[in-house]
């Protein structure tokens, strides 16, 4: 995009009096381009607002919105000490101590700033636009980062690439009010400031990166990536003999201050010095001190032999002390072992075997090739060539970028959602490839004399390959080749822009709370059943009613329905979720006992049989069985399967046909004709006629079913009188 803009702006014929020097012209173009990219990054994320409305998307954002609302209404102190009795009934949740408050504080701060400026906007609008706003800011950081690592041309390309990269847009469209929205900005800012600190050795930049890190910690759990990548980078520099005092200053300042600041976040607290995930940074911190000490000793000792023996002793004892400290810490429980989530990143099969609750989330699945292609498009091919350029011009900064790129690509391969973390690195590295290639090509094109020829071939692989054959031939041929290649590059980049726009508008801009489909005549049909049900709950049930549903809908029920839920998307208590899973997969009378013990008043299930909506509870049901069975062995997965096959029609397992989830989903569904020419009770989501049409409910009664049957709510009847 940026390339397209350049010629058009520079072709303006400026009046003589206003004629600027070349340098000023360049600055003007650069600033104008950046400003355009800044705006572009914002507006490309507004598809969802135009298509639907200014609303919060998905699941987690609803929790963030609810907490932000609480924060703006009740102030920070109340927020920080908030014990939420509306979720995880009867346990409750200490909100202040179990969330990353960065996002909410940011939105609340923007909100109060706007109010101070006499712009009385609703907090919802602020929340909806927070992610696009930070995406715009990220483009600026990307510019400065690439400028620091390579040059300002690469900076502009990086800003343009990241502004529209689908991998990032997927998490930052308007309404996607999630931690990642601000966290990617914080992540890139921290990295940029750290690289700047390493390059300059300045305390100020290191301090800046410590604060960037603090912001990152306050915003997202992904800060663990920073606190492991930075030490790893330092280690690599040490091993490759690139240790310098600049590095020492940068890392020490960043680590010590960053650690102290991070510990202020209640959710992190002492974990930062105690948990296994953070040990690498501490180890590297001590290692740096040893390095510095050795350096100092070598400086004092002129005798090399003496130093060698001293080195041996010191290194051995340092390693021994470190190992003993780690061993004692682990054994005494002072240092906690790695968490399951961390394990599942290092070993992708771990979650499947041990933690079904992590494996059940679709965004935690290993990434398919198609989604790499979908999210990165041409960047996927530019990335390796960018790495090549980085290796060609190796410096502390490019090493960092390479490491960031490689590690994050690995994580992106492990989990779909971590594509997000890899996106900035991929964009930056690709930007270097694009910028370097185009720069070399244009140099060839603009060259007048053959003398430049040799200069032009030094940089790029593409230019090289094109020029190799023609080096002995006449110059115009080389020029033509370069022009063809340039056009090819522009073609690819414009394909990228088209692809990004298409993906943004088609795939990443639907709020998932409102479903849209094409009607028979091509018109848009909207299924607004979720909100219908949540609003019904909010208006027509007692304010203290407890709603049981699968955990996916917990945040939405509390935020939109304003009712107490048993479990929600903050899956902190596996047993509690397993209890709900058990209730859903038991027979009605057994489930009734469980529900009575949990004080459940209403049960909410999501059912797509009428509309053909496939991500409903029946399709998620096996996970409920698995998670329930993981804690309560009475629930056995084979009971719900027939020959290892999951089915809901006549051939389904008897337990399946009579479990609570089946009954609640299909209650009186057998009377309904969903599709012309099909028998009544034809489930459109699974394409079968259901197996149990005569469902009687004894302990529950239908309280509400939405227009398209997507959400069904049942009331738990009070116990019968005993006499």
């Amino acid at each position: 995009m940026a390339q397209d803009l350049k010629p058009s702006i520079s072709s303006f014929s400026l009046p003589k009096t206003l004629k600027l020097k070349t340098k000023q012209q360049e600055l003007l173009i650069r600033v104008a381009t950046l400003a355009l990219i800044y705006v572009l990054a914002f507006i490309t994320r507004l598809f969802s607002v135009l298509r639907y409305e200014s609303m919060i998307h998905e699941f987690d954002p609803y929790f963030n919105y609810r907490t932000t609302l609480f924060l703006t209404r009740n102030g920070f102190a109340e927020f920080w000490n908030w014990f939420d009795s509306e979720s995880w009934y009867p346990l409750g949740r200490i909100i202040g101590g179990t969330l990353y408050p960065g996002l909410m504080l940011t939105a609340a701060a923007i909100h109060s700033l706007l109010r101070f400026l006499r712009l009385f906007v609703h907090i919802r609008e602020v929340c909806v636009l927070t992610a696009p706003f930070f995406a715009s800011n990220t483009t600026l950081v990307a510019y400065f980062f690439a400028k620091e690592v390579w040059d300002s041309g690469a900076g502009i390309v990086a800003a343009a690439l990241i502004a529209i990269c689908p991998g990032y847009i997927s998490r930052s469209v308007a309404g996607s009010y999630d931690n990642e929205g601000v966290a990617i900005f914080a992540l890139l800012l921290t990295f940029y400031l750290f690289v700047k600190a390493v390059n300059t050795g300045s305390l100020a930049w290191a301090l800046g990166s410590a604060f960037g890190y603090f912001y990152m910690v306050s915003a997202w759990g992904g800060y663990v990536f920073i606190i492991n990548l930075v030490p790893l980078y330092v280690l690599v520099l040490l091993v490759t003999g690139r240790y310098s005092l600049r590095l020492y200053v940068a890392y020490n300042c960043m680590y010590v201050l960053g650690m102290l600041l991070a510990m202020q976040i209640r959710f992190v607290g002492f974990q930062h010095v105690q948990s296994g995930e953070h040990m690498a940074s501490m180890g590297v911190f001590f290692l740096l001190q040893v390095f510095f000490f050795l350096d100092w000793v070598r400086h004092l000792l002129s005798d090399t032999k003496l130093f060698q023996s001293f080195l041996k002793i010191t290194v051995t004892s340092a390693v021994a002390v470190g190992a003993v400290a780690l061993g004692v810490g682990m054994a005494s429980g002072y240092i906690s072992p790695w968490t399951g989530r961390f394990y599942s990143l290092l070993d992708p099969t771990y979650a499947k075997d041990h933690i079904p609750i992590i494996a059940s989330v679709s965004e935690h699945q290993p990434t398919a090739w198609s989604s790499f292609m979908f999210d990165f498009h041409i960047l996927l091919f530019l990335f390796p060539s960018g790495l090549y350029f980085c290796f060609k011009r190796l410096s502390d900064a490019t090493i960092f970028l390479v490491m960031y790129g490689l590690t994050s690509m690995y994580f992106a391969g492990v989990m779909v959602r971590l594509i997000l973390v890899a996106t900035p690195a991929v964009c930056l590295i690709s930007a270097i490839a694009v910028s370097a290639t185009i720069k070399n090509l244009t140099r060839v094109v603009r060259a007048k004399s053959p003398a430049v020829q040799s200069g032009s071939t030094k940089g790029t692989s593409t230019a090289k390959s094109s020029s190799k054959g023609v080096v002995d031939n006449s110059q115009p041929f080389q020029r033509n080749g370069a022009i063809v290649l340039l056009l090819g590059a522009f073609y690819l980049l414009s394909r990228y822009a088209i692809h990004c726009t298409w993906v943004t508008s088609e795939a990443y801009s639907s709020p998932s709370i409102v479903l849209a489909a094409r009607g028979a005549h091509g018109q848009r049909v909207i299924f607004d059943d979720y909100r219908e049900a949540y609003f019904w709950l909010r208006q027509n049930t007692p304010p203290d009613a407890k709603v049981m549903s699968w955990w996916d809908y917990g945040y939405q029920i509390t935020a939109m329905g304003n009712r107490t839920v048993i479990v929600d998307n903050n899956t902190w208590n596996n047993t509690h979720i397993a209890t709900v899973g058990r209730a859903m997969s038991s027979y009605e009378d057994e489930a009734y006992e469980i529900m009575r013990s949990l004080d459940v008043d209403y049960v909410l299930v999501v059912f797509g049989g009428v509309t053909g909506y496939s991500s409903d509870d029946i399709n998620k049901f096996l996970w409920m069985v698995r998670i329930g069975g993981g804690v309560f062995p009475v629930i056995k997965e084979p009971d719900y399967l027939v020959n290892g096959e999951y089915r809901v029609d006549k051939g389904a397992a008897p337990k399946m046909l009579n479990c609570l989830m089946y009954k609640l989903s299909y209650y009186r569904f057998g009377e309904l004709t969903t599709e012309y020419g099909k028998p009544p009770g034809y489930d459109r989501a699974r394409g079968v006629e259901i197996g149990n049409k005569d469902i009687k409910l004894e302990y529950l009664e239908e309280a509400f079913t939405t227009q398209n049957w997507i959400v069904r709510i049942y009331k738990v009847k009070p116990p019968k009188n005993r006499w």
Partner: protein
Amino acid sequence: MAMVPQPLLILLFFLSLLSIVNSSPSQHIQIVDAERRIDLTSHIIKVYLTLKVENLGTSAASEVLLTFSPAEVEHLALLKAAATSGKRKKKTYVPLDVKSAEQPDGPNGTKFFSITLLTPLSKGETTTLEVLYILTRSLEPFPVEISQSEPQLVYFRDSAILLSPYHVKQQTTFLKTPSTRVESFTVVDPTKRAGTELKYGPYENHPPYSYSPVLVHFENNNPFAVVEELEREIEISHWGSIQVTERYSLVHAGAQHKGVFSRVEYQTRPGGTGVSSFKHLLAKLPPRVHSVYYRDGIGNISSSHLRTDSRKSELEIEPRYPLFGGWKATFVIGYGLPLQDFLFESPDGRRYLNFTFGCPLVETVVDKLIVKVVLPEGSKDPTAEIPFEVKQHLEIKYSYLDVVGRTVVVLEKRNVVPEHNTRFQVYYGFNPIFMLAEPLMLVSAFFLLFVTSVAYLHIDLSIRK
């Protein structure tokens, strides 16, 4: 009240009557003929009362008293009277002034309203008065709870005989029910029922304060749409538009819904189940309405249609779910209107807003209506002119880019029915120079921003040279 046996009640009236009979001026007036038509077809009860009044006394009478039982007064939304003259086709109505009479309460807490006649009625003269009064929330659902498949039955309580401080020579009462299904009704001979009409009377020669309670139990499946609170905010911008925001909290005030709500029955038998529930509402908006929205606390509600023509706009809205008895829905409707249709300049140079008062939803009762007229920043001494009694006070509101805040005229009224949709005026003084305040603020802010950035680029602030 209706629980008290009928003869005893009449006796009570007579006893208490004796004390005031002599002092009361009502002695001199008698009602020759009274005809009451009570319309029970919706949940808003309209009573058309035609009185033929004669003055028997020696002095001229300038006012006629109307009486209402305390229960009626509580639910009385509107009371209008008109004098008729001319016959049949050339009948003309002249509205008369009705006000709450400053008299001590009558027997059993009866409340008085007085109609001021155009010309005092001299001795022996007769005149015909047309009175319209509207009662809300006076139909009592019975059974109190119904299931989805049952129709809604209600009680209506009134008196077969007109409650009046005067002697009534002859009277009849007609009740119109929405359907022919009437479960039961009190018989006070002569009583006749034909189709949807129930006729009490004619009764002859009833002394003042006669009362004969009747109870009618009938089916009424009309939507009992009651807005518990409606806040209408009318924001005037002299840049050319009026923005109206209406916040509703709607409730189905009929018989409570009991037990199951079955979607399959509701969908497959549209006429058979949930007959008393409703899902459509119609809002009548002014013509040339634009940027209409319909949303609630959790976002936009996609089920609404707007029809506009040159004379009116109709907004058909559906709440997110059908409303059964006792179910609630809160929502917001907002729209913009061209300023020139509603804002005028009065001869003394003051501006005035001419706008409708009541609730735009048809056939709904509003328990509490708050109308807020947000005047532009810098307006002075607002005064409101409303054709009926309302509570008034002023507020300050801060909107976009406001410094001193906008004056808000707050009008509050309870028990509002569609007949209250009449025009009201808010007068205020306004200097057009204030219109420029906000654009100038913006311009200067941006100017300062550019000046600072220019200054920043040209001034070298570094310490080291």
